[in-house]
């Protein structure tokens, strides 16, 4: 039987040294994790120092021998050499990490930037734009952040000074995230912001909680980390200023700056938010429509355009201009509000006559009356637009309702002249079959609403039409026209609460200006993304090969080897 070990002074010193060393290590670890000197760290340091001091005091010879001993000398050297070696490897890793070298071996270069993207980046740099792509990734999404970074670091590398990439943890930096437009549900997604000269995000117009127009960072929501969305965002920024929309003024048009329900400030904000320049245009004061006009819009004019103004518009359209007219019915609004009468596009209007002669479309002096208002709107003059013609513009609207108020019917020529034949007239919106067009507007103002089979227009009525060149004239300039029999459709009151109206507005603008085509990025076709087709018989054969034959062969070989070696 072994005698019990005596508890000597050296034993105590040895244990004190071990406890002291462990306490110091624990203190260092806690400080590293907590990133501050807590009471725990302080206590560990105290215990550690006391333990080491006790060791040094109680067994100085032991300490001296340990320090000068062979294991200590060799061990220390070994640990130091290992630490330096691992440090060198870590340093090399950091250097390579910063070098950002990536090879994409996918067949369609899925994780590389395509040529159109590189062109956009060049355009950005050439035009002096600087953008910041901001990714919102909380701690829990570190993995997604790393996956996204494969693509994002290429944007950063290709963009040089033009593109910065920044990741924000919305949990740790909620204020910064909010500045860039972070909202719940955006974790794991990206925003794009345009930077100013000083490197800070540029401001843009926005609608504040009180409905007024204010400013915030210029941000564009990109969505996930894919080349299509990010490049589309970059193209949007790159095209900033390349598109300019003029709103006519001087005829009682709706006010772009008016934040009230009757204003159209939300249209201005939506254009500004996409980087489309907006300007006012008084045709009476200029010789011609400016050459940089991507489109001219007439929204809710009350006074008709003079012959001279019409000539300027006609000259603009002959150059391939794009015109959008949103016209309210005559008399009605004026009669209700007590304002002077609405004469825009009335029967003897020069502009209406030009539209008819040139394009074969015109506005009628009538008001759409809904005979079954109880179905949807509850008012005779808020017609149901339940017949939507197939048209590019209506692709986004789909089944979304569109709200209108006091709508004016339109007419398309049945027998186009040779000149009118150069154009395609495509219906856009119809009212319901139960509606009719009241032509006796004075009767309506006096409260007499009745369908007069002889004079009034039977429904469904055309209230929206587009005009473009015939295909055989594609080599010539391409004027385009959109005529809608209502301007309330785009006023703030509707735009802020009716998605259908917003889609209609953006699609009309895209159709007129070509903005969406200019910013849309189409990735290459990927033949590896077709769906797999395997018959059940083939699957059974594969299962037998992979789960029985192959493992069985390996097991059999092992068995033979084992049996052979036993012999």
């Amino acid at each position, binding site marked *: 039987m072994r005698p019990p070990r005596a508890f000597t002074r050296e034993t105590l010193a040895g244990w004190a040294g071990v406890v002291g060393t462990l306490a110091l290590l624990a203190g260092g670890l806690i400080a590293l*994790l907590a*990133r501050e000197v807590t009471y725990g760290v302080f206590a560990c340091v105290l215990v550690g120092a006391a333990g080491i001091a006790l060791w040094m005091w109680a067994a100085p010879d032991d300490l001296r021998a340990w320090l000068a001993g*062979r*294991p200590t000398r*060799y*061990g220390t050297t*070994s640990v130091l*050499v*290992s630490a330096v*070696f*691992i440090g060198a490897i*870590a340093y*090399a*890793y950091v250097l*390579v*990490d910063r*070098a950002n*070298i*990536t*090879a*994409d*071996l*996918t*067949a*369609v270069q899925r*994780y590389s930037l395509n040529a159109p993207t590189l062109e956009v980046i060049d355009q950005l740099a050439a035009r002096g734009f600087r953008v910041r792509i901001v990714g919102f990734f*909380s*701690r*829990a*999404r*570190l*993995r997604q952040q*790393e*996956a996204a970074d*494969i693509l994002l670091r290429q944007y950063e590398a290709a963009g040089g000074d033009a593109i910065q990439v920044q990741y924000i*943890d919305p949990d*740790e930096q909620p204020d910064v995230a909010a500045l860039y437009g972070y909202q719940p549900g955006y974790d794991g997604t990206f925003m794009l912001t345009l930077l100013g000269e000083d490197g800070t995000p540029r401001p843009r117009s926005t609608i504040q909680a009180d409905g007024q127009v204010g400013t915030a960072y210029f941000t564009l929501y990109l969505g996930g980390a894919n080349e299509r969305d990010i490049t589309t965002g970059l193209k949007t920024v790159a095209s900033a200023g390349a598109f300019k929309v003029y709103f006519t003024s001087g005829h009682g048009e709706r006010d772009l700056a008016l934040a009230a329900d009757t204003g159209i400030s939300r249209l201005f904000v939506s254009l500004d938010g996409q980087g489309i320049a907006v300007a006012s245009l008084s045709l009476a004061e200029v010789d011609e429509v400016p050459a940089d006009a991507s489109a001219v819009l007439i929204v809710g004019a009350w006074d008709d355009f003079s012959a001279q103004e019409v000539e300027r518009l006609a000259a603009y359209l002959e150059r391939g201009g794009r015109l959008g007219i949103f016209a309210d019915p005559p008399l009605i609004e004026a009669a209700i509000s007590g304002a002077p009468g609405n004469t825009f596009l009335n029967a003897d209007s020069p502009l209406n006559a030009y539209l008819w002669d040139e394009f074969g479309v015109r506005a009628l002096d009538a008001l759409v009356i809904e005979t079954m208002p109880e179905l949807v709107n509850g008012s005779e003059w808020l017609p149901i637009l339940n017949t939507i013609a197939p048209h590019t513009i209506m692709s986004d609207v789909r089944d979304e309702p569109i709200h209108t108020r006091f709508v004016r019917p339109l007419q398309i020529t049945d027998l186009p002249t040779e000149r009118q034949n150069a154009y395609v007239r495509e219906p856009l919106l119809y009212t319901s079959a139960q509606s009719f067009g009241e032509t006796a507007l004075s009767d309506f103002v006096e409260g007499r609403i009745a369908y007069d089979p002889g004079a009034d227009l039977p429904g469904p009525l055309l209230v929206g039409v587009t005009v473009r060149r015939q295909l055989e004239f594609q080599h010539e300039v391409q004027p385009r026209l959109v005529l809608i029999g209502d301007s309330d459709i785009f006023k703030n009151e509707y735009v802020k609460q009716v998605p259908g109206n917003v889609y209609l507005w953006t699609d009309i603008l895209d159709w007129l200006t070509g903005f969406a085509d200019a910013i849309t990025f189409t990735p290459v076709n990927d*033949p*590896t*993304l*077709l*769906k*797999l*087709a*395997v018959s059940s018989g083939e*699957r059974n054969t*594969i*299962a037998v*090969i*992979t*789960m029985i034959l*192959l*493992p069985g062969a*390996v*097991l059999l*070989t*092992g068995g033979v*080897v*084992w049996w052979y*070696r036993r012999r």
Partner: protein
Amino acid sequence: MHSVRVVARRELAQYFTSPIAYLVAFAVLVLTGWQFNVDLAQRVGSQPPDGAAVLGSFAFFTLFFAPLLTMRLLAEEAREGTLELLLTAPVRDGDIVLGKFLGAWLYYTLILGLTLVYQAIWLAITTARAYALTPELDLGPVITAYLGIWLFGGATLALGLLFSALTENQVIAGFLTMSVLFILWLGDYAGSVVQSRALAQAIRELSLQAHYATSFLVGVIRFEDAVFFIGVITAALFVATRVLESRRWR
């Protein structure tokens, strides 16, 4: 290098004369075969083929069988006393460590090579058929995934060899290796557990999966990921050599 070759060949031969190695290969093939068939069933009619998918599972299985391959490398020699004989032979410590590692890595490579049968099946399905809309197998991710899993396996084996050098008990060596590999695997999800983002990022940098799943497995070679695995292998072998060397002065 000659001594490295000799040691490596001896180790590889030991794998092939031991039934355990065949059982490991059998288990790996059954598991990956099951995974391959599950993946195939899920893709039919809904997704394109992905040759790298089965290698994602292979990486996970590596956590279990790499310790089985390495736990005996040095621990068994130390327990049976043959290590002392080896150390007295005219062979450098580093050559012993490197030779044993290469032997294990070669065996791992052979097991990995068996999974090429799945790629052959994918190619048979996608190219040797007359359907007009048959998807093509993207070989890029397959190549990068094999390169990645090979490096991944090398790193796990090097760590296993290090733990085998630290103890004479094979079970402890195997258990420690498996524990550390699990921690390094789960480190990829550190952000969901650790409250400090900086610490979570630091842990992820050490995670084996983080350097494989988001790059090699999807068809991308990030140079730093390759350097990470090579670095882990080099560091682990270097430290294992120092540990072996310490037997001379302990």
